[in-house]
């Protein structure tokens, strides 16, 4: 029988390639099925943003920047800087998967995957109550902070959700807001360049993603090669006290 080069075999028969590895108890990049890739975080590199973080999980790279602006609060929640509405938050998290990060994404408006990631991230932010509601208030009823938390993917090698959540939390921890005073006479808010206050985070939700292959193998932290072959994805989000924040599962799932 003719021997195939391993990289050619990987392209032609990806499923069989993965099965052969898993039957030996190992994954194509050398990890055990329950092992995680190394994580590295670099904060504060973008000076134009109020807070920033660059996260790498293996080769998946996400960069997140926080920009703060001032807006008027909603009438029925004058002290809340916006949190509360199920769709909006006073943090506006958005994930962008540009065409740069993978050949799968085309340039243009956000596709399905980016919209799903943004929606999930927003749910976690709202339900975990990362920031206490009143900490973003400058003057009740007149001026509150709005935090735009934008995450851009630079390299997509699987497990985008964990990286995006980690980048968002790290950037929020790194954020320093200028001290703002509301002047009642001129109805304007003036900020100080010299005095900055860090954000007080109440909880730090972190997530772990898994995939199930062939209804028999549980793989943690799937890469972009393994992702199309897995039929089920499970993401568990917990905060640092160990209490469960959210469990998301998608796909056909029967675990024996």
């Amino acid at each position, binding site marked *: 029988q003719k021997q195939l080069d391993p990289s050619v075999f990987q392209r032609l028969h990806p499923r069989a390639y993965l099965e052969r590895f898993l039957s030996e108890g190992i994954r194509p990049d050398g990890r055990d099925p329950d092992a995680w890739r190394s994580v590295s975080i670099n904060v504060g590199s973008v000076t*134009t943003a109020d807070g920033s973080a660059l996260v790498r999980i293996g080769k998946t790279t996400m960069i997140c920047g926080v*920009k703060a602006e001032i807006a008027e609060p909603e009438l029925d929640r004058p002290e809340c800087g916006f949190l509360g509405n199920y769709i909006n938050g006073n943090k506006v998290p*958005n994930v962008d998967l540009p065409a*740069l990060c993978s050949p799968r994404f085309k340039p243009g408006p956000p596709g399905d995957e980016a919209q799903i990631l943004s929606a999930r991230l927003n749910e976690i932010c709202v339900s975990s109550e990362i920031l206490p509601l009143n900490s973003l208030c400058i003057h009740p009823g007149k001026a509150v902070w*709005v935090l*735009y938390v934008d995450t851009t993917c*630079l*390299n997509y090698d699987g497990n985008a959700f964990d990286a995006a959540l980690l980048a968002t939390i790290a950037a929020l921890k790194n954020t320093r807001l200028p001290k703002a005073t509301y002047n009642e006479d001129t109805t304007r808010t003036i900020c100080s*360049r010299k005095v900055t206050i860090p954000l007080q985070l109440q909880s730090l939700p972190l997530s772990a993603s898994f995939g199930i292959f062939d209804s028999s193998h549980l793989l943690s932290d799937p890469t972009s090669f393994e992702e199309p072959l897995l039929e089920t994805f499970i993401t568990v989000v917990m905060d640092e006290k160990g209490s469960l924040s959210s469990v998301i599962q998608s796909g056909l799932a029967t675990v024996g």
Partner: protein
Amino acid sequence: MASFDRRRINGPEESRPPVFEDDEDAEQISVTPKTRKGRANKDIRPIFLTTGLISQANGSSYIETEKTKIACAVYGPRQIKNAPYNEIGKLNVEVKFAPFSCSRRRAPLRDAEDRSISVLIQQSLLPSLRLELLPKSGIDVFITIIENDGVEACVASGAVAASTALADAGIEMFGLVTSCASAMVEEEIWLDPTAEETVRARASFTIACIPALGTVTNIWQTGQLTAEEAICCLEACQTCCRDIHNVMASALLNSQAAKCS
């Protein structure tokens, strides 16, 4: 005023960037320093350039010069779907600003500034590539600006990053394209101006050239310049481009050595 974008999580209808107290004092200061602070007129900022950061792309590069940070990925040559037969390959350059890259938050929608920078970078790169060897194919160059310190610096660094990424992808070319920006402040030529220096200048002059062939591929000039001054800027930039070419070549050699070892 942000328009409602149904594909993204939206914030409040209207939000304003913060106004700082020193901005109101700064307008009263009319005395501007005569000499450039931090470096000489002909010095450019140190460049940090690496390739290979984006593993999913055929070629990629990342450039950082003090406050300008740009990531570039090249996909290609690949098939263009639903297009008529083209004998010469198509080069498509797309530039995107990250929302946190400017001092005032940019909406994620693409606007005229993105497109004008894309056209300038495409014009810089086009003469250097051997596109006649790639019929029926297209090359996509995606540039993301992570931090922005002046549009001229973005155009110049973007062209350098794009040319390095194209070389990293193995696309045949006549030579590497280097690009340098300059500004005319009173009677002096300042190379590689920052955003603040550009505001004070009366004219800015950005060129892209191929040092290996000694040809100029793109000139972008704004402001008031006499013809003699323009030629002086051109010569100053071309000398500087040769130094940038060395930086690009050594970055590519290092990455190839790392791949082979």
